[in-house]
């Protein structure tokens, strides 16, 4: 190790880190952002890309250098230097990754707390999403309406509750960056079946089921229309009333 050009290698690593990071940061990996959580999550992903590029560059430069520098000449039957280790180096490559992953864990935790406001905002709209093989149903309890179509107002926090009638399903709108399984048996003490999300961009997106739920799993997609409050209200008026037994059930749940 004595004659290894450490500074030069470090320079190459930094250059490669920068190049890889820049290339990796150009594409819009996660696609369009359409919720308030998306920006935070995408920034976290960008940070992870920079650290990943650094780790990747360090490993590739060291590996490439070792192969280039010490590749055996044809017919060379000699042995390498009998180096058994180096305590300082070993401590370094235990400690530095520990610091890096601890940092990543810390910022992930911060972002997680950020996107999951524990208390719904005051003007949030309640929404109950029910999944069954292989269809979605959306209940708007404040208006007493239930629909197979999925419309939500823009810039208003949704306080979503999830229900599954048969097997596991999963609620995912890629542009919102939010995913959560719908578990049969919810609401239950041990099942975390609600989350908040605030769509902040009008448009039409897809709600995709991402938990294998049987034969029709790949067809279990539905359009998500994010529109202005006025358009949403107009749409909601035309939707059917929530059937009575559903309301009874909801009332029973509220009472309990």
């Amino acid at each position, binding site marked *: 190790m004595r004659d290894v050009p450490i500074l030069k290698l470090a320079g190459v690593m930094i250059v490669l880190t920068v190049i890889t990071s820049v290339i990796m940061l150009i594409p819009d990996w*996660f696609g369009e952002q359409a919720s308030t959580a998306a920006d935070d999550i995408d920034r976290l992903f960008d940070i992870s890309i920079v650290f990943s590029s650094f780790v990747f560059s360090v490993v590739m430069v060291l590996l490439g250098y070792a192969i280039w520098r010490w590749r055996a000449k044809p017919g060379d039957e000699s042995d390498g230097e009998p180096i*058994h280790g180096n305590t300082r180096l070993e401590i370094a490559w235990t400690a530095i990754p520990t610091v890096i*992953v601890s940092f990543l864990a810390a910022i992930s935790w911060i972002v997680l707390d950020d996107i999951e406001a524990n208390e719904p905002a005051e003007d949030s709209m309640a929404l109950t999403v029910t999944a069954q093989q292989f269809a979605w149903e959306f209940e708007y309890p404040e208006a007493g309406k239930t629909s197979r179509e999925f419309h939500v107002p823009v810039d208003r926090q949704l306080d979503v509750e999830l229900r599954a009638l048969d097997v596991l399903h999963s609620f995912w709108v890629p542009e919102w960056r939010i995913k959560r399984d719908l578990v049969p048996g919810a609401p239950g003490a*041990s099942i975390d079946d609600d989350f908040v999300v605030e769509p902040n961009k009008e448009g039409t997106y897809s709600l995709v089921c991402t938990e294998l739920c049987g034969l029709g799993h790949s067809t279990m997609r539905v359009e998500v229309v994010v529109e202005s409050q006025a358009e949403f209200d107009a749409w909601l008026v035309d939707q059917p009333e929530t059937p009575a037994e559903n309301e009874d059930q909801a009332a029973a749940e509220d009472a309990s």
Partner: protein
Amino acid sequence: MRAAIGSAGWWRGIYGALIGGAFGFGLVIGLRAISGLDLFQTEQTGYPHVIVPAITAPLGFLWGMGNFDYWLRWASGAPTIPDDHADHGAKTWKDYFKVNTDHKVIGIQYIVTTFFFFFVGGFIAMLIRAELAQPGTQIVDPGTYNGLFSTHAALMIFVFVIPVFAGIANYVLPLMIGAPDMAFPRLNALSFWLLPIAGILFLGSYAVPGGAFDAGWTGYAPLSTGAPLGQSFFNLGVQFAGASSIATALNFLVTIITMRAPGMTFWRMPLLVWANLSTSLLVVAATPFIAGVQFMVLFDRALHTNFFQEAFGGDVVSYQHIFWFYSHPAVYIMMLPGFGIISEVISTNSRKPIFGYRLMALALLGIVVLSYSVWAHHMFVAGMFEWLRVPMMITTLLIAVPTGIKIFSWIGTMFNSVLHLKSTAMLFAIGFIVTFTIGGISGVMLGMIPIDIHVSDTYFIVAHIHFVLFGGSVFTIFAGIYHWFPKMTGRMYDEKLGRVHFWMTLAGMLGTFVPMHWIGMEGMPRRVADYSAEFAEWNLMITVASFFLGAAQLVFLYNMIVSWRYGPKAGPNPWRAKTIEWQVSSPPPIFNFDEIPRVVGGPYEFGVPGARHAIMAGEKSEVKKPERSEVVTT
């Protein structure tokens, strides 16, 4: 003919299977008749008259093949027939089709059987990619498609990656530690024969009403508890594969702890031995969990228990907790033996001692301990208790540290080395460092909860698991097969074809799995037969690359078969390695050693003047006095 029926072998095996199957069938029908029930219960989760024979017929087969003969005689008080070891070694290819207690024969039986399932699973993967080449459904209907990816994963995980490592270690490990065989040779034989049964049950599910199991290899309840009959075959196949795993792990533990050659202290064990010690610790403690949870699913299905039926007080999410409490450690069960292989290959081909040997061994143990504390990172979006997520994220990210130690140590080993790239094993070892580093990095990203919330259950996950299981485990398996091929067969493989195989595999692997990250992040969920048209171009490219990857494996198959038969003779030690298995002939003598070797130093003392790892029996006269006195004092 009478002799054929009476003595262990295929005839008695077939009769045993028939008798066992008939007994199970009769038992079910008889009990149902006595209870006044319909004789045949054909709800899709039922079919007891199929499930019970699917347990008893394999047991009858195992009896017929002679797996239990010694134990049954002993248990019934009949005089046992002392083993004269006449069956050791394989004189013709037919000997590989018999119950054999020789660890080298069993090792080859394991490797060939598991590679058979690798090619079947690979063929299924080609069908999956063919269906996904275009959006919409073209080749198979969605139900069949769900069966294809479920059986692909089940075959690859349970009857290829996990057992092929057991096969390689079975062959190499006793030789490495200077033992004449494994600690329990009969148990070892039984472990092997349980395996093909698991594979046949997985594949047999295609033939039953409702088709192959189609709830994914994860078999999440309640989809699995309500699925057609094929799911029961998955539940049972996992039992046979799991029993095989547990028995082998016990065997390795006892062999490693009690049968090391004199002088081989723990700190003189080759890292492959350390790796298998760590893996076995994982298997014995974790595998019972998947066995248990699959029984619970089977009971929910066939006996109408309510472990996972929420309507009757069951808990749906608990399936995932128990499943991943095995299946996350299983990721390391599928990786640690590979780490061991890579250490052997890199040290030998770099002509250098492993850099930081002790930290390498400790890192393995660190992974064993940590791997029990990360399972719920598979469940960040599963609706489990919120408070469990952050602790699981922290342990998940921390487990990258011991893994990183290993990568840096391997590269440290290559510094100041005399690096030989002529062996295909070394190419796969270096390729492994590249692909596994990428897989490790995407693993850290997945450990970060907010990122995981977005990419969980998408093609990003599919990309990640194939980077760690194909770019990780399978690359190390190829490295191991190429490295020990001369030892196992006594012949050399064709290095030129080996290089073709390596470069095709690396290119095909990157072309197939790199773009999966992108389509996953953009919004393509996993486990779908049909997908949104925006992903069409990428999927077509992935399919083309995957066919290339599939074709590369045919090069490997050709190379192995032809070289095994016609390859040039290999000397005992073509790689000039130091560990004990290379100090005996290729293939090794039937009983490994005339006299147990004595270990006098570390396993990787390349470049240390006068250093020896072991002194073989035949060398006695050559050994100078001072060295022998050194042996006595150490």
